[in-house]
């Protein structure tokens, strides 16, 4: 019963009106890292969408005659060793980047969250089994699983996506179980049990909503990691196969020419950095914005 240092907003003054939805966007626009993160993420998304309808040049046409051009009015960022337009490559590459991220994180999120929620709800040997299995999976680096998968089904984008996705499952299992356990320990869960709700309903109605913001933040971080992993796999030749461009492949191709034209490595590197930074900032912002305790303040 001691006076808190920062007095929490409650009781008496309750902001009238302002539906949660409009309030969300108003607060979102005032959240600096959310706005910056959203802008950068939209930039990448926009690039991918744009590449579906228009690119300055074809990203697949090889034109050896105009190889390694410096930036010019025709080729804004120059051309690569096969004479392909860098801007076009970046735009099309954004597509594979987003696809890899979405599918890999989707795999990790779906399986990881389900397993984590089951582990937290069931406890006992179920939890033990799930956690040990996820430890086992976690012990294999994504690159290793990708090499193994590639050996079986051959290299390709799908292989790398699957490998990255599987690699992401244990992370989501851990994060989900940890935060779900914390929620299960709270009194409102006891209240729900006293009301007669079973483990499944409690998980769906109470646990999941309370860990959602943590999962969203984790997903954006994992999305960024997936992009990096895809770049690494492509760089090793295990990911996206030529002629399909990806940012990782571009880095791979630029490697041999690092001393001749270093800028070839800088462009895809910067693109990856922008995407990763944007997603991390977006995740940070979402975490703050999704907290109902901050929702109707001021």
């Amino acid at each position: 019963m001691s006076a808190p240092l920062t007095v929490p907003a409650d009781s008496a003054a309750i902001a009238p009106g302002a539906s949660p939805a409009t309030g969300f966007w108003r607060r979102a626009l005032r959240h600096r890292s959310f706005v910056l993160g959203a802008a950068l993420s939209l930039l990448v998304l926009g690039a991918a969408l744009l590449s579906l309808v228009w690119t300055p040049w074809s990203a697949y046409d090889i034109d050896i005659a105009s190889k390694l051009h410096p930036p010019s009015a025709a080729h804004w960022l120059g051309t690569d060793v096969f004479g392909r337009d860098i801007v076009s490559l970046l735009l099309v590459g954004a597509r594979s980047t987003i696809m890899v991220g979405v599918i890999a994180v989707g795999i990790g999120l779906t399986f990881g969250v389900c397993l984590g929620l089951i582990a937290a709800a069931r406890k006992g040997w179920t939890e033990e089994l799930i956690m040990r299995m996820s430890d086992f999976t976690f012990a294999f680096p994504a690159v290793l699983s990708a090499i193994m998968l590639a050996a079986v089904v051959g290299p390709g984008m799908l292989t790398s996506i699957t490998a990255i996705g599987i690699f992401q499952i244990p992370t989501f299992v851990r994060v989900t179980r940890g935060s779900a356990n914390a929620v299960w320990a709270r009194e409102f869960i006891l209240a729900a049990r006293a009301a007669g709700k079973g483990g499944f309903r409690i998980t769906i109605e109470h646990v999941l909503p309370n860990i959602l913001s943590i999962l969203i933040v984790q997903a954006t971080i994992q999305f960024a990691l997936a992009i990096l992993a895809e770049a690494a796999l492509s760089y090793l030749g295990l990911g996206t196969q030529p002629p399909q461009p990806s940012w990782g492949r571009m880095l791979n191709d630029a490697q041999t020419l690092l001393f001749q034209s270093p800028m070839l490595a800088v462009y895809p590197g910067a693109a990856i950095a922008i995407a990763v930074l944007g997603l991390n900032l977006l995740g940070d912002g979402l975490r703050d914005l999704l907290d109902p305790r901050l929702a109707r303040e001021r």
Partner: protein
Amino acid sequence: MSHATAPLIEVRDLGVRLNTSRGPAQAVRGVSFALRRGETLGLVGESGCGKSVTALALMGLLPDSAVVSGSVRLDGAELVGLSDSSYCKLRGNRISMIFQEPMTALNPMHTIGRQVAEPLRRHTGCSAASARKETIALLDRVGLPDAAKRVDAYPHQFSGGQRQRITIAMALACQPDVLIADEPTTALDVTIQGQILDLIADLVEERGMSMILISHDLGVIAENVQRMMVMYGGTVVESGATDAVFMRMGHPYTQGLFRARPRLGARKGTRLKTIAGTVPELADLPAGCTFADRCGIVEARCRVALPAAVGVGAGHDVRCLRTDVSMADAAGAVRV
């Protein structure tokens, strides 16, 4: 004590402005008191009344964004505006604090011996061996059984009451002049509460310290301090000798707080007299008397400005414009 006449700690017109999530708030206004060696003062009030903020202001532990005004003098030396490094030399050395939650006040990763010895080694610079000896003596003094054996145990190996004894040993390590106890027994069982309060009282007497005891429990205040201040909305609404206040409560809030307590032997079906409304947010206190919105005898003039403290007895002040009514009314309320 030799210099019993000069106050050890003197607080004048202390004010604290805090930045809360709902904007700036005047968390404490116009708090003044003086304590000599061996004297005890109780601060009583509900959550958000400013009693803990006052304690933290005395300890120099408020967040950097807080603005402290007025004056706090320890043995004549001004503390308000003191740099953090100078304050560090005072904290744990001349002013110590005991907190409500003995578990969170102790670091679970360190042995209790190390934690009790830490202020000793920092402030007196004594050797590890002598600090250990002193630590065992201290733990023994606060009534920890088998102190010599258990000095290397970790906090989780003790019960709540024992942990509070350990935090008291920590607070006393450097023989402080002023001890601030912020709800020291709220987290403890009622039979343990008595023991801890006994221990604190013995130590205050034995070492000639001044003590400020913060509590929400009127009973704890009544039994443990010589003087008391009732706080509400960041202001002291009533202050005086404990007996005088309990004999004739002057402020409607003090009276309300007293009547709202469930009492032993009240029998089933007795209705408690409640104070209407809720404790106001510090960020939007009413303009005049902070209690105006919940007061039963409020008048228009109460809402104009914060009432001045009125003397209603020797050293007994009430911040109320209507003591004539409230104190006539209270005549029968404080039957013992």
